[in-house]
């Protein structure tokens, strides 16, 4: 008996081991996990490094990076510490990414489930609505929603969720359409179980894996959408956000390009980590799609 043999572990633990062994085969996916860990660490450090307020003056304006210990990554034109902005921005990016993704998947799964399970005219109507949402350029719709609802952080998260649910809806619909014809569903229906229970308790747990894998794609998209909004000055002004830092740094781009470059790199690495993570998960959970 060796430790590497997972068969003598309890089933729950065995599943995790197999999962991890498959995941770790993909080096890029492991890199993604490390990057994501780094971003989470940044977000956690925000409270320790700069507990007060990243939006207040911390030193001489336009200090370049690596000049003084007080502001290691330099300051912007108002003397705000860029490192503090990066740390607090990590919180906002992750927060918006996670909450917007939950909203988007919740809307998508409900609509996809109803369309796929009931079919017929319900499917027709819901799919036309989905098509309409796919047709309207999502960033323009996002602008309109933020203009109407106002740009508090809650409204931004809600608006991002509203413009990004179409892909999970299509995925959930496809899963429901194939699952509802299975024998075990016929069996529970004959036992007198109602539609709602069949949808949520019988089909949903089986339909979720591909949707969950897609969550990392939506997370990356949500972070990109928020940063673009904040860049244009339409984000919530009460929070430090990477996009907003870049937007304000634009005014001093000619002389102090680091003010834009540092938060930009932070966005690229964060989005990259979610993409890599998604690919790794996809390879493990949907092995049929790839060789």
């Amino acid at each position, binding site marked *: 008996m060796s430790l590497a043999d997972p068969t003598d572990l309890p089933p729950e633990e065995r599943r995790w081991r197999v999962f991890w062994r498959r995941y770790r085969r993909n080096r890029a996916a492991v890199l993604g996990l490390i990057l994501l860990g780094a971003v989470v660490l940044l977000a956690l450090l925000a409270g320790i490094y700069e507990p007060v307020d990243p939006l207040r003056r911390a030193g001489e304006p336009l200090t370049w990076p690596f000049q003084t210990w007080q502001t290691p990554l330099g300051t912007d034109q108002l003397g705000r510490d860029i490192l503090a902005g990066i740390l607090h921005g990590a919180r906002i990016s992750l927060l918006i990414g996670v909450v917007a993704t939950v909203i988007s998947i919740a809307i998508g799964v409900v609509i996809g489930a109803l369309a796929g399970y009931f079919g017929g005219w319900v499917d027709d109507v819901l799919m036309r609505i989905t098509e309409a949402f796919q047709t309207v*350029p*999502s960033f323009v719709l996002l602008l*309109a929603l933020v203009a109407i609802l106002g740009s508090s952080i809650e409204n931004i998260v809600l608006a991002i969720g509203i413009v990004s649910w179409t892909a999970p809806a299509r995925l959930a619909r496809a899963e429901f359409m194939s699952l509802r014809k299975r024998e075990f569903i016929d069996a529970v229906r004959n036992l007198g179980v109602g539609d709602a229970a069949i949808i949520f308790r019988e089909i949903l747990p089986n339909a979720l894996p591909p949707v969950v894998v897609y969550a990392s794609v939506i997370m990356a998209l949500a972070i990109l959408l928020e940063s*673009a909004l904040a860049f244009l000055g339409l984000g919530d002004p009460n929070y430090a956000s990477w996009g907003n830092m870049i937007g304000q740094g634009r005014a001093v781009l000619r002389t102090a390009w680091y003010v834009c470059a540092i938060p930009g790199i932070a966005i690229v690495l964060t989005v990259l980590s979610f993409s890599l993570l998604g690919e790794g998960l996809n390879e493990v959970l949907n092995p049929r799609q790839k060789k």
Partner: protein
Amino acid sequence: MPFLIYALRRALQAVPVILMIMVGAFLLLKLAPGDTVDALVGDMGGADAQFIARLRAEYGLDQPVWVQLWRYLAKMAQFDFGWSYVYEQPVSVVLLDRLGVTLMLMCASLFFAFTIGVALGAIAARRAYSVTDNVISTLGLVFYATPSFFLSLMMIVVFSVKLGWLPVGGIRTIAAFYTGWDHVLDVARHLVMPTAALSLIYLAFYLRLMRASVLEVAELDFVRTARAKGAGEGRLMFHHIMRNALLPVVTLLGLQFSTLLGGSVVVETIFSLPGLGQLAYQSVIQRDMNTLMGIIFLSSVVVIVVNFLTDLLYARLDSRIELS
């Protein structure tokens, strides 16, 4: 003949989608604080209640919501989006004025992203799991993660500020009055950076898709048969694999058009290009709701038309598709 019927049926399918977008635009307008009359009165610097009531009646705003919706749909169907209080012109005139620049930027970006993305994807797939493939695939992931506004600013730093090669913004050199070829070249120079910024994410997208698609097709039986019959690798690639591998990539041309239009908001704003994207941003800042809804409707129509055309192209390219 079946092709014609197919095209007609596809066109009819777009009708409910357009209708739904129009209803959506109406709902958004109703949700927005303030209406046309509020905007008018605000412009005039205030008015008495009686006058406001008369204006409301004149614009039909005293009618029930259903009547208002019906009138709105009827007007929109004729491309009448109301009056822009910012530009003092009908919205449709403002939109048509801006459409050209955006379509030019769109087509340039799509062309660039498609050709380079397909070429890189095919190269990566032919040398799958080699160093070349790793470099190309990693580049693709980084491109995908780079926001267009960040790339735009960094390009401005390098190519405009440091090297001085390209203009920072605008669609043409002001007060230069170029004509003929000089004018074309001048506009092209102004479009280099915006095109690159807008196309990067889509280039990454086509690259990944093409790589996966080529890998899949290369495994199919008919490729093995062709190879067994002595077809050279070059002929195999261009005659047998590419043709089939391109199909899924072509379908996505249409789908991406909508996202591309959204991306133009940021890029046009940064490079001060007078297109629909910049107009959308300005309308939000100036709370010009009529114009914003006009942009949503017009861009949706553009997306639907492009989707329709790609569908037809796809049906023509792939004879396996049934036209019923």
